């Protein structure tokens, strides 16, 4: 394939530059996250599930979000209204009511304004949100440590293992920065997606590391190029599946998981096939230099 031939560019690139570019992206992502923290006081925008509050979803309703928000504010409730659409028809509006406001008032108002529309309502208490956040952080931290241990057990060499762990970390950081930029909130669903990202990220990194370290019959460049092609196939199929998921569903849970995974996979392509590959090529060159 033509695109695959283009991947040759990477093979010819100098390992030092292969390491530098992804590190720059990583640094930019860190800047975005810190910037977000400075502006909003949190690393990533937290959704209703973590902060507490209510979401009312009305499917199949088309209304001007701003207009509706204004009408609701006349009830004395400050709500956020947003519109969503799905490719297979459908779409509607979501109304976010912060914790402590009177949801029942909003519900009654909406029932009157859109009679016959079946709502979907989620109400979450603030303490519950706090617990979900704690659990989320705990789950991510433990999963990360667990992953690192498994990776070390499999490879038993420090430099390549550390690189795998770092690129998984960088994937997550970049995904979070993109969540900040695209306004995707941290929720149970996106926490799950971040966890899933650990799995995907390790997948491709292990493939690359195994192929480069264990394939002794070919040159490093050959081995790299062939794994790069495999990796490219892997990433495109997964991205294809995720994009179709994202396009066809209007369920927020699925949309959110799909978009975070898409961010992460894009980051992962760079971190595995450019950054990790660069480190490995330098590592192998050094090792083989020693042998001589």
């Amino acid at each position, binding site marked *: 394939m033509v695109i695959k031939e283009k991947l040759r560019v990477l093979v010819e690139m100098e390992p030092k530059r292969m390491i530098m570019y992804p590190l720059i992206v990583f640094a930019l992502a860190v800047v975005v996250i810190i910037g977000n923290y400075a502006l909003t006081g949190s690393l990533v925008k937290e959704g209703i599930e973590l902060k507490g509050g209510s979401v009312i979803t009305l499917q199949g309703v088309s209304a001007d979000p701003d207009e509706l928000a204004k009408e609701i504010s006349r009830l004395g409730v400050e709500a956020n209204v947003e519109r969503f659409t799905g490719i297979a028809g459908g779409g509607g509006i979501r109304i976010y009511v912060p914790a402590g406001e009177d949801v029942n008032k909003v519900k009654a108002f909406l029932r009157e304004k859109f009679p016959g529309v079946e709502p979907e309502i989620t109400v979450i208490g603030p303490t519950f949100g706090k617990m*979900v956040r704690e659990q989320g952080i705990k789950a991510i931290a433990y999963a990360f440590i667990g992953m690192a241990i*498994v990776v070390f057990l499999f490879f038993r060499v420090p430099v390549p293992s550390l690189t795998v762990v770092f690129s998984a970390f960088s994937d997550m950081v970049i995904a979070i920065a993109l969540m900040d930029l695209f306004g995707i909130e941290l929720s149970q669903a996106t926490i799950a997606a971040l966890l899933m990202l650990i799995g995907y990220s390790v997948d491709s990194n292990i493939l690359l590391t195994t*192929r480069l370290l264990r394939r002794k019959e070919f040159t490093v460049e050959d081995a790299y190029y*062939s794994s790069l092609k495999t990796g490219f*196939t892997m990433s495109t199929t997964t991205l294809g*599946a995720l994009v179709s*998921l994202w396009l*066809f569903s*209007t369920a927020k849970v*699925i949309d959110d998981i799909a978009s975070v995974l898409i961010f992460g996979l894009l980051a992962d392509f760079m971190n595995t096939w450019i950054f990790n590959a660069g480190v490995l090529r330098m590592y192998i060159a050094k090792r083989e230099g020693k042998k001589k």
Partner: protein
Amino acid sequence: MNWKKIILNGRVILLILFLTLSVVSLATRGLTFGLDISGGISITVKLENPVDPQTMEQVRIALEQRLNALGVKDIVIEPWGNQFVLVKVAGVSEEEGNQIVETIERQGVFYAEFQGVIFATGKDILNVGSVSYDPREGAWVVPFRLSKDAAEKFAKLALGKAGYPVDMFLDPPVNSTLVVSKEFYQAMLSPRFQMNGNMTLIERISKAFNIKVIQYSNQTPEEIAKVAKGSERIILVDVDGKLAEELKKMGLKVEVRKREKNEDIEDFVRRVLRLYGPYRVSEGLATGRPSTEVMISIGGSQNDIRARNDAQVVSVVLRSGSLPVKLSIERIDYISPKLGENFKKQVLVAGIAALLVVGAIVYLHYRKLKIAIPVMFTSFSEVLIILGIASLIKWNLDLPSIAGIIAAIGTGVDQQIVITDELLGESGERKIVRRSGVLKRMGRAFFIILASASTTVVAMSFLFKFFVGGLRGFAFTTILGILIGILITRPAYGEIAKELIGGRR
């Protein structure tokens, strides 16, 4: 290409076996969908502090007893760890959902009534002992202590009335008019509810709670409204639904109770009235001497689980349906059943689209149907087996579970590509001729697959262990999918691919 060799391979046979089992299970048992797909309400209730399993069981019974009042079908109460309880009800309307929430939040109101006189309410029950089996009585007993006032009141009422019925109620439908079917009416008059007393159950509840009971015999809504004047609400029991609409149109508050399939008519009466008992007054209590230490006994052997459960329920009711710990509602998810249908369709479309897109991309990469079709087939089998197992263990498929299936398929396809590429080798530049070469390559592919599968399983296990919410479904199906992948489908794909790609070299 040697089809026979493919089909007769042990790993392929295993795959076919699992596929058959899954299809059979799906066809006979079907899938159970989560509330976020099928519609309904799910309420996460938090207890004030962590409790032991015994207390948790009391909480469960108390919630169950209270919610039964609503006559809503299929209420599932699931304790979650030691501090949370999930209450799930499928297919309810928004209004019913609100009623459920209110009921959980509200304290139950307990009444003990004798001869149409309420002699004790919840605050007169000072202490409820634990349920135990009394071999002398040959019954399960619930001892409790009455307040002095209530004991004296009862002693006076019950003088010389041994064998009369004592009724206990939790949240009875006070100030209401019951329009009931003939069968229901007859049941209310049955000796089981009257015992040796001289008042019928209908008379007792009318006197104590101002509950009017009318037998329905095609009266017009106007006639019923006239009788029901002064009642707070009308409850239609086993009466056709059209009447409810008409009465509602007249601005009356109407509730409907339906007898459940296989429900005993007497149990139905108890459920509608929220009646427990009646219990027979023993000789000792009819002497006119007040006694504060009393007990309710429920006949049955020591191994009689039903009798024991009934006793448990009584003990909970005596505590006014109040819970051993304070609880708060932490999360409510409501989704209308109609919307759920829509989601099911969407998820199906998205799933099929994802599968086709994957197939198309794989084809674009290799330009060989020989690869694209087995890859798609393997992914499809994976979905089928995950669903098969889900239906076998009656796992509730909710949206996160479905996302998990998709995630598992995503990694699955990745791994099949690893196998394919290992087998294809250096894109034809150097052909692998020796069979040992193929085996070595397969070995390496499976090393990669095993390493990445174990990391994902480890990561997901934490999610499964630490989350209270619905994300366990995501973790569960992901782990299930990965396990099915490395144990069943991936080895089979390896064999098929070896024949189709590797074997020919």
